[in-house]
């Protein structure tokens, strides 16, 4: 172990342009061993390009990468068994079953076929072991592509939009898979355009937009840093806007066709007052999310 190996990944000021487009425009971050690191941002933010540079698939125009202490570009054969890269959910051999795909990829790393069953179990595809890749559902293919990235038991796993285009149930199933991978001590770097998902899964996130990192921290710290008020939403008609605005702790109250929204920085006394009035029917409490962080950072509504 070299001293640089203290961090799993060190990215230092990488740049990549395609013609006039600055796909990655000065990105730096480090990822510790065993960390679940998320790169978030809307489509076209430069997440995938950044990830491909870190994986060693593309050469940065400028900047440097240390992946487990090594520069991943040009291709380092010694590094490859230690990283697992999930590719698009069609990167399979034609007409092979889920198990055969994994056995084939395992053999490329000198790993025996027994490992295929293990990773199928890990991603919850044991029952689909003998199903051909083209007969799997979108979510199952996605899980199989993650299994392919894990088949040689790498230290760092890169996942590019693993939950994109999945239905909500499939997404949640996949979250369990991702958590299980992290529990095995793997370092995970993953990109997503679902901010809510990153908030739930990641230890730390970097929010990217237009090739730059706008903010980087734990999701909780980012939201806290916003110092955004809490919004309490009631059914319309329970109280008037004027009554609500006069309640203890209420900063502001506004009504629309369906609901009454009260903003507050001290929700405790406000909720107590509402409870005393028996006005808790249909009550919702909304705290700030990463979407609010994005809005705050860019001045734009978040659109994936």
């Amino acid at each position, binding site marked *: 172990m070299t001293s640089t190996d203290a961090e799993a990944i060190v990215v230092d000021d990488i740049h990549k342009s395609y013609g006039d487009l600055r796909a990655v425009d000065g990105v730096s971050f480090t990822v510790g061993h065993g960390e679940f690191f998320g790169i978030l941002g809307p489509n076209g933010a430069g997440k995938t390009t950044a990830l491909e540079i870190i*994986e060693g*698939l593309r050469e940065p125009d400028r900047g440097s990468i240390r992946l487990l202490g090594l520069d991943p570009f040009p*291709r380092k*054969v*010694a590094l*490859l*068994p230690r*990283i697992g*890269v999930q*590719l*698009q959910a*069609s*990167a*399979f*051999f*034609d*007409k*092979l079953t889920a198990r*055969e795909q994994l*056995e*084939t*990829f395992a*053999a*490329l*790393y*000198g790993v025996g076929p027994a490992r295929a069953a293990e990773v199928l179990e890990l991603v919850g595809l044991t029952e689909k072991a003998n199903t051909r890749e083209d007969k799997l559902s979108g979510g199952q293919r996605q899980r199989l592509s993650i299994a*392919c990235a894990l088949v*040689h038991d790498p230290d760092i796993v890169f996942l590019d939009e693993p939950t994109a285009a999945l239905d909500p149930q499939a997404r949640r199933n996949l979250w369990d898979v991702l958590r299980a991978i992290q529990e095995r001590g793997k370092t995970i770097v993953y990109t997503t355009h679902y901010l809510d998902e990153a908030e739930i899964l990641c230890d730390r996130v970097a929010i990217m937009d237009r090739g730059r990192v706008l903010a980087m921290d734990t999701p909780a710290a980012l939201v806290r840093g916003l110092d955004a008020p809490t919004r309490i939403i009631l059914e319309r008609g329970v109280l008037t806007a004027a009554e609500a605005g006069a309640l203890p702790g209420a900063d502001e109250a506004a009504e629309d066709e369906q609901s009454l929204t009260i903003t507050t920085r001290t929700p405790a006394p406000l909720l107590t007052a509402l409870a005393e009035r028996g006005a808790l029917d249909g009550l919702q409490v909304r705290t700030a999310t990463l979407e609010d962080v994005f809005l705050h950072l860019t001045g734009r509504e978040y659109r994936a």
Partner: protein
Amino acid sequence: MKGAFKSLSVAMVKGFLRDKTTLFFAFLFPLMFLVIFGLLFRDAGNEKIKIGAVGDGQVLVALERTGAVELERFDDLEAGLAKVRDGDLPGVVQASGDEVVLRFAASDQAQAGTVQGLVAGVTQQLNVAASGAPPKYDFRAEQVEDASLQPIQYLTPGILSWGTAVTAVFGAAITLVNWRRKQVLRRLRLAPIGATPILASRVVVTIGVAVLQALLFVGVALLPVFGLTLSGTWWLSIPVFLSGVLAFFAIGMLVGAFCKTEEAATGAANIVVLPMAFLSGTFFPIDKAPDWLQTVSKVFPLRHVNDGMMDFLVRGKGPEALLLPCGVLLGFTLVVAFIASKVFSWED
């Protein structure tokens, strides 16, 4: 890396055997051509010339005895002449008493000449016999084994090399494009293996499929219905065949290196394979084509595979005839593979 080579080969073989369309085009489709052409042309070259005949007499009997013509009898001359005018018969012979008259169609001069010669020859023979005088010139005819072939003898090597060419070119090109587009190449690139096991496994699978095709097509052609007879040096065709498969594989790699989509690769492969098939003597012997076309056809590897296969499979040539086709094919392979390796990219 042995494990990588083996597992990639197994993956490709399974993919091949499970793809019904590919199996059809590799085995059944060329076989259909072999069966259809084999049966269609089975009796080609044995057809007799049909001529009309009116009346009777020694001349007509002698004509029939030559074995070269078949007589169609007419009751009157007009009916026979009508057939000649329609172009259904090359001529009609009218024999009455001592008079023999041939009326022939002038449109096909070669056939008219043949018919005239036959009828005149038979008539003169009878004249000589009738005169009782010994013939001044002695004439004998002897049969010679000639180099022209029964159709099945050139159809089998032709269709075999064509079928192999199609499968090898398309297989290599489509696999390469498909793997690049679907990021399978990227996945292989991310694994700790070099390009050698990937390339080697594809070559071995391509050769394996070609050998299966050869066994099937030659096996079927050997059936009595088709009547292929192999020459004593048939086994010398194996090196020609394998060199040919390598050349086709190289073409496929070049097409796959150039094209970004399967559609483009299919089109490009067709542009190469179709003219090559027509100009290389797959479906008809190329030596009947004009000289310039024969020269053009020599740039195609399929032409050399065809010639080489025919030399050993049916003509029974000796090992010295290996040098030209194998040399040309391996040289072609090296040049095309070199270009392909320069054009090739792992990613789009």
